[in-house]
């Protein structure tokens, strides 16, 4: 229910980052675990600032974390 058009790889990136928990990532980027869970499930689109903070934690470019559905075809 309520899926956004932004997909993400947060789950995979967390797994690759030493199996970082949602709570740990949430604390690093300054949001609640529930908000991070909603972002990961593609039910909430974060602001650009938060999206950059998440990418910074993993040390990857923004487009490796978030993709707009259909944008790769253009």
């Amino acid at each position: 229910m309520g899926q956004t058009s932004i997909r993400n790889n947060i789950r995979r990136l967390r797994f690759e980052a030493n199996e970082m928990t949602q709570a740990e990532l949430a604390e690093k980027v300054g949001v609640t675990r529930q908000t991070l869970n909603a972002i990961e499930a593609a039910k909430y689109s974060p602001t650009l600032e938060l999206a950059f903070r998440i990418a910074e934690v993993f040390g990857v470019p923004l487009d490796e974390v978030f993709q707009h559905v259909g944008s790769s075809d253009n």
Partner: protein
Amino acid sequence: MNLLSDMSTTEKNLWAELGVDVVVALYYFPKMFSLIRAGDTALVSVMAGVVVTSIILAIIVGTALAILLRVWREPRLEDERDLRFSARGTLIAYRALAILVALIMGQLVFEGLFPGLRGQLAILTKPLLIAHLLLLSLLLSSAAKSATQLFLYRRAS
């Protein structure tokens, strides 16, 4: 409980606020409107009792819901999602309040313009009833704010 762990502290607080609003409104308004309609001469003294009981009821229900929802267990951290949902809730509450106040004003203007048509719904002659209708409007808009936020939280969980 899994449902509780899915909720942020802000959302739990909203459930508690909505619960208190609903319980107090269900107690307060039927009592008040029946008193006003009956034209109780000792209305002020009776009203004071109802107001005090409402406050006590709000404290009891608020405490019970806080215990049930375990709101004190986590620090209350507000993030961008809380602020965004709060802004949406405030917008809905503002619109609801504007509509309700416009309806009350419309009724007052109508009764003022056509005194001969005053029927069962006449409120102009009862200032206390007008005050309570405005209070009810405030409460409904507050409930609309909480309900909107809770809807957004549940949809995104």
